[in-house]
C-alpha cells in the first residue's frame, strides 16, 4: 500500500477524466463541435508517451553509468509502453482527423515527424533483437535510445513550429494560451495527462517485474 498509492491516484484521475471529459462543458467551436473532447483522450497519449520515453532515456543513462542490467530492463519496457501509447495516439488522431480535417492522415509536419519517430523506435526494438550478448545489447541499445530521443524531441516540438501545421499551437511561437482550451478544459486536461502517465508507468513496471521473474527463471 505504501508504494502503491500512485496506482490509486492513476485510477482516480482517469475516472475523473472520463466523467468530466464527457460531461463537462467545452467551448462551442465550428467543425470541432463535441469532438473537442478528444483533447482529453488523444493529446494525453503523446504527453504520456514523452514521459515514458524520458524515463526510458533516464534509465539508459543509468545503465551506461553502472552497467547494471536492471536499468536496461526498465529502459526497454518503458519504451515498449511508449510505443503502445504512440500507436494509440496515431489511431485516435486518425479517427479525429477523418471527421474534422477530412483526411485520416493529412500531410502535416507533426504527423510526419511522429511517423519518423515511431519508425525510429521500431528500429530500436529490432536492434535489440539482433544481439546475443546481454551487455552488448544493453550498451548499444542504450546509446541508440539516447540518440533516438534527441532526434524525437526536435522532430515533434521544434520542426512543426517552423512551418505551418494543422495542430493548434504550431507554426510560430505559441504559448499554451494558443491552444483551443479554456480554464474549464485545463481542469480536465492536466489531470488526464498525469493519469495516463501514471497508468503507463503502472503497465511498464508490471512488464519490468515479469521480465525480472523470467530472467531469474532462465
Amino acid at each position, binding site marked *: 500500500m505504501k508504494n502503491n498509492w500512485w496506482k490509486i491516484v492513476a485510477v482516480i484521475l482517469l475516472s475523473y477524466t472520463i466523467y468530466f471529459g464527457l460531461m463537462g462543458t467545452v467551448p462551442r467551436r465550428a467543425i470541432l*463541435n463535441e469532438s473537442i*473532447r478528444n483533447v482529453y483522450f488523444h493529446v494525453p497519449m503523446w504527453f504520456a508517451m514523452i514521459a515514458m520515453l524520458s524515463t526510458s532515456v533516464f534509465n539508459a543513462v543509468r545503465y551506461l553509468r553502472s552497467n547494471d542490467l536492471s536499468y536496461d530492463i526498465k529502459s526497454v519496457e518503458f519504451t515498449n509502453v511508449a510505443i503502445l501509447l504512440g500507436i494509440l495516439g496515431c489511431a485516435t488522431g486518425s479517427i479525429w482527423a477523418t*471527421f*474534422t480535417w477530412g483526411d485520416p492522415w493529412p500531410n502535416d509536419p507533426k504527423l510526419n515527424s511522429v511517423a519518423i519517430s515511431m519508425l525510429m523506435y521500431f528500429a530500436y526494438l529490432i536492434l535489440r533483437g539482433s544481439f546475443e550478448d546481454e551487455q552488448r545489447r544493453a550498451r548499444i541499445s542504450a546509446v541508440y535510445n539516447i540518440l533516438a530521443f534527441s532526434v524525437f524531441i526536435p522532430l515533434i516540438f521544434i520542426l512543426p513550429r517552423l512551418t505551418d501545421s494543422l495542430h493548434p499551437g504550431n507554426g510560430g511561437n505559441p504559448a499554451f494560451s494558443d491552444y483551443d482550451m479554456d480554464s474549464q478544459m485545463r481542469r480536465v486536461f492536466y489531470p488526464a495527462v498525469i493519469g495516463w502517465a501514471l497508468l503507463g508507468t503502472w503497465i511498464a513496471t508490471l512488464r519490468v517485474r515479469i521480465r525480472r*521473474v523470467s530472467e531469474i*527463471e532462465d
Partner: protein
Amino acid sequence: MKNKVSVAVFTLINFVLSLNLFAQQSVKQEVAMADQMRADGKIWVVVAVISTLFVGIIAFLVSMDRKVSKLEKQLKK
C-alpha cells in the same frame, strides 16, 4: 392574354427554382450516407476514440497475459 403569359412565366420560374428543393428533399430521404459520425455534434468521434484506447489497452494486456502464462508453464516444469 398578357396576364396568362406572365402567370405561365411566373409558374415556370417558380417550378425551376423549386426543383432545387425537391432534389435536396429526395437526397435527405432516399440516399443513406455515413453521416452518423458527423451527427450529434460529432460526439461519436469521441466515442470511437475512447473505444480505440480501450481496445488497444486490452489487446496489450492480452499479450502480457500470454507472456505470464508461458512463464508459469516454464515454472511448473
